């Protein structure tokens, strides 16, 4: 059989690495290959997966959203703050959501209409909303969930049968976004816009509206992810904005094989990338490897996947696109 390098896409490479690691951990680590542990594994990366999906929508449309973590942290923390201040749950949720959507709309307008590159526009809006949140909307860095919020708490803490709610919600996000991207006209327009915006415009696709809609969608999902985090640990730590989380999200997207040049990839890529990270983190925690060492190993495996991809698929003028980062 002839080896065909084209079959080995980055998504497949990452999937293979994930399978190899998974097999190795299953044999080498007692307690890894157990149904409960596998649920924990997926649950621990469910929020990362959800954010990855949001980022994928934007990256496929040839953009990037660096404000995502700030939107997630501030909008959900504000919801908790409003609840603490005595607002009803629904009003607090509505205001939090509106706050997230406002940033999404601002991102979209800046990028699609003012034509600022997405990298700079979202970098700025992210810092803006974080600063605004810390200065005017929130009392402290860490906002706690008020006691006895009933069903609201079960978003992050509850489960249906043995399956945790956050995992189910991640699954729902995957299905819904997959349907939107692959089955609707809007989804196909996103691919068209990402692949070649100029051609898309000539064909009559409302490119600016599509781009704005992508950022609004991403902000909506980010708010949703923030609510899962805050109900899961009973608090929202806005300091998360200063962590490497935004890079982890981009990593999951790129690792799965969605090119930053846009127009390519699907929800499946994000799932594969997320599963690799999940397997790695879970196995290393079982082995009780120190945090800094974990980061080191994680980065090595990521580098390996990316290098293998560029060796197998060298870039040339034909494959490179304008806007390729």
């Amino acid at each position: 059989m002839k080896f065909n390098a084209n079959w080995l896409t980055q998504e497949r490479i990452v999937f293979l690495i994930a399978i190899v690691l998974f097999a190795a951990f299953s044999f080498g680590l007692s307690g890894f290959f157990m149904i409960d542990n596998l649920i924990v594994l997926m649950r621990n990366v469910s929020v990362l997966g959800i954010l990855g999906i949001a980022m994928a929508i934007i990256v496929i449309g040839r953009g990037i959203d660096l404000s995502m973590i700030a939107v997630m942290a501030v909008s959900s923390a504000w919801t908790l703050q409003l609840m603490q201040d005595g607002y009803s749950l629904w009003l607090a949720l509505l205001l939090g959501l509106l706050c997230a959507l406002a940033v999404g709309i601002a991102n979209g307008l800046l990028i699609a209409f003012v034509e600022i590159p997405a990298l700079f526009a979202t970098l700025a809006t992210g810092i803006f909303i974080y600063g605004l949140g810390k200065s005017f909307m929130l009392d402290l860095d860490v906002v706690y969930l008020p006691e006895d919020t009933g069903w609201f708490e079960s978003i992050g803490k509850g489960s249906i049968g043995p399956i945790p709610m956050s995992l189910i919600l991640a699954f729902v996000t995957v299905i819904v976004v997959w349907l939107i991207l692959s089955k609707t006209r809007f989804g196909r327009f996103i691919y068209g816009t990402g692949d070649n915006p100029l051609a898309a415009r000539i064909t009559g696709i409302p490119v600016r509206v599509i781009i704005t809609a992508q950022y609004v969608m991403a902000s909506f999902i980010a708010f949703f992810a923030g609510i899962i985090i805050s109900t899961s640990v009973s608090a929202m730590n806005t300091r998360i904005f200063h962590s490497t989380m935004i890079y982890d999200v981009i990593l999951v997207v790129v690792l799965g094989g969605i090119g930053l040049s846009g127009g390519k990839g699907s929800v499946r890529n994000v799932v594969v990338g997320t599963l690799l990270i999940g397997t790695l983190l879970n196995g290393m925690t079982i082995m009780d490897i120190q945090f800094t060492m974990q980061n080191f190993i994680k980065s090595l495996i990521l580098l390996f996947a990316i290098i293998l991809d560029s060796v197998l698929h060298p870039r040339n003028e034909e494959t490179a696109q304008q806007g390729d980062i």
Partner: protein
Amino acid sequence: MFKKILTIGMAAAMSVGLLSGTARAELKDELREPYFESFKGKTVAFLPIAMGIDLTEGWAAAMQAAADKHGFEFIVRDPNWSTNAGTQALTSLIAEQPDIIVVHNPDVQSYARLLKKAENANINVIQVNMKSSYSTNLYVGVDWVEIGEVGAQEIVRICGEGSGKSGKVAIIQGVLTGAGSIYQIEGIMNVLNQHPEIKVVANQAADWDATKAKAITQTVLQQHPDLCAVYGFWDVMTLGAGAAVEEAGKLDEITVLTNGGGSQMACDNVKSGVFDKVWSYDVPGQSRDIVDMIKIIFQSDMKPGDMRAALYTPLKEINQNTYDSGICWSLEK
């Protein structure tokens, strides 16, 4: 006879009263004037790891109140969790020459050289809660070794010999290079090394982040369903570990221990059973210590390097009996 004695007694008492009354009018409290005089035109600068957390907000509020009352200037430089920004802020503070810098170190190394430089520039430095490897005149804060030892003794009491438990313990540290982690783990190991029946099945850093603490605890719980205790290095972070135990439905079997500044959140979570015990280093108490040290420095001619002293905070234990005794604080109170 009795009446006579009473009359004499009353007369005596009255004359004593009169005498002391005149004495009071003549004697003045000689400390008062120099006390208030000593604060005039002075400046205190505060460099926390970040504002917006219960600890630093509590300390700053107390210093601000003292400044307002006594008329010295109080300035805050907030590096917002960035060690880099903190280093720059400290460098520029040294150039600005405040009389006292109150510093909250992000780790034991980063500010060490600059603190020495500040002392050379004749600025008194008070370190709060997180010590640098370089000791200045004063350290006000937790004895991390002690808090680790106290926590470990509780672990031994609950999970050790004769308890009938597995003896398995998970330890969740903060940022590994911070004083809060380095000295605390030392204290824990001082005790646990003498108790081989306690097995540390996980010793991980969660970076002061509740979400990471939760993920670690969930994985550990899968591997060791018979876990006896989780010990977290800060209550805000340990909230995540507690959430993991709660979701596993094991709050009754697994003991969750931690420590923190004793804000209302700690009491609420002891009340709801998420935390079994929290050792509080009582931010209002620490704040008073800090303000007292500021007052002493201003009233004495203390120069940097005159002493190397520590005021270790007495610990308060928040447990089922004490959580509603007013032991916790909030900024509003």
